[in-house]
C-alpha cells in the first residue's frame, strides 16, 4: 500500500440531500464509528482532498459547484455517491428541480445506497474507495514510467 492509501483525505459536499445522509457522514467521523481509523480525514478544502463524498441528488444549481470541487481536486481522485439520492435521485427523482444521481455529472466509483445510508455501509464504501484510489495511483505511476 502506498502512502496515499494510508491517509486519504475526504471532502464532503451535500448536493440536495435531506440532511439524513449528511449527519450520518458526520456520525461516522465520530468516535463511535471512527472512520478516521482508516487514516481518513475530513477536509473542507478540495485541493487537499482525494475522495469526493457526495450526498443528495444533482440539480441545475449545484451542478457547477460539484464540478468545480471535482476539478480542483488533484489526481488521482475517487468519487463516492452516498445514499440513494446520490445514487439515482431516489424518492426525489421525479421532482422538477432534480436531475438525478451524481453520475449525471461525475464519474462515480463507488455507490453506497440506503435511505438514509447506514453508517456501516458508508464505512464499507469508504474502505472500497481507498482501494480504488490506490489502484488509480498505481495506474498513474505506471503510465508515467
Amino acid at each position: 500500500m502506498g502512502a496515499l492509501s494510508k491517509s486519504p483525505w475526504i471532502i464532503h459536499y451535500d448536493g440536495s440531500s435531506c440532511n439524513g445522509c449528511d449527519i450520518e457522514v458526520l456520525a461516522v467521523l465520530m468516535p463511535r464509528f471512527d472512520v478516521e481509523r482508516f487514516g481518513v480525514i475530513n477536509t473542507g478544502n478540495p485541493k487537499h482532498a482525494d475522495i469526493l463524498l457526495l450526498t443528495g441528488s444533482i440539480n441545475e444549481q449545484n451542478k457547477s459547484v460539484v464540478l468545480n470541487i471535482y476539478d480542483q481536486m488533484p489526481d488521482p481522485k475517487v468519487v463516492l455517491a452516498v445514499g440513494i439520492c446520490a445514487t439515482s435521485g431516489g424518492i426525489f427523482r421525479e421532482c422538477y428541480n432534480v436531475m438525478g444521481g451524481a453520475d449525471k455529472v461525475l464519474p462515480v466509483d463507488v455507490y453506497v445506497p440506503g435511505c438514509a445510508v447506514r453508517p456501516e455501509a458508508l464505512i464499507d464504501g469508504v474502505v472500497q474507495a481507498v482501494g480504488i484510489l490506490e489502484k488509480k495511483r498505481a495506474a498513474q505511476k505506471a503510465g508515467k514510467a
Partner: protein
Amino acid sequence: MGQQNIIDIQVSELAAKVTAMKSEGQRLVQICCTKLPDKLELHYSFDKNYDFTSFRVTLADATVKVPSVSGIYLSAFIYENEIHDLFGIQVDGIAVDYKGKFYRTAKPRAFNPEQTPGGQA
C-alpha cells in the same frame, strides 16, 4: 387547540387588513400560493396566542398585481420572492426584491409553468 379561521378578502383590502393585524400584535406566520385549474389562491397567515387566522385572496391569474406587505412586515419579503419565483405572482414593491433570483430553479415559475403564452416550461 388554537382556533383556525380562513377569511376571504379582496386584493384591494390586503394592505389595510394586514396593517390592522400588525397593530393587534399578530405575528406573520407565512404567505403561500396555491395553483388551481382556473385561479390562484394566496394565503396570508397570522398567529396570536396560538389562534391562527389566514386571509385568502383569490386571483383570476398571475397577471393581477398584488401589493407587497413587506413594508408592514419586513419578513414578508422572503415569502413574496418565493411566490414570485415559483408561481410568477407579480408583487409590487417588495422591500428586498431579488427579481426572480431568490430560488434558483431550473425552470422558471415551476409551480405555474403555463403562465406565459408559449410556455417556457
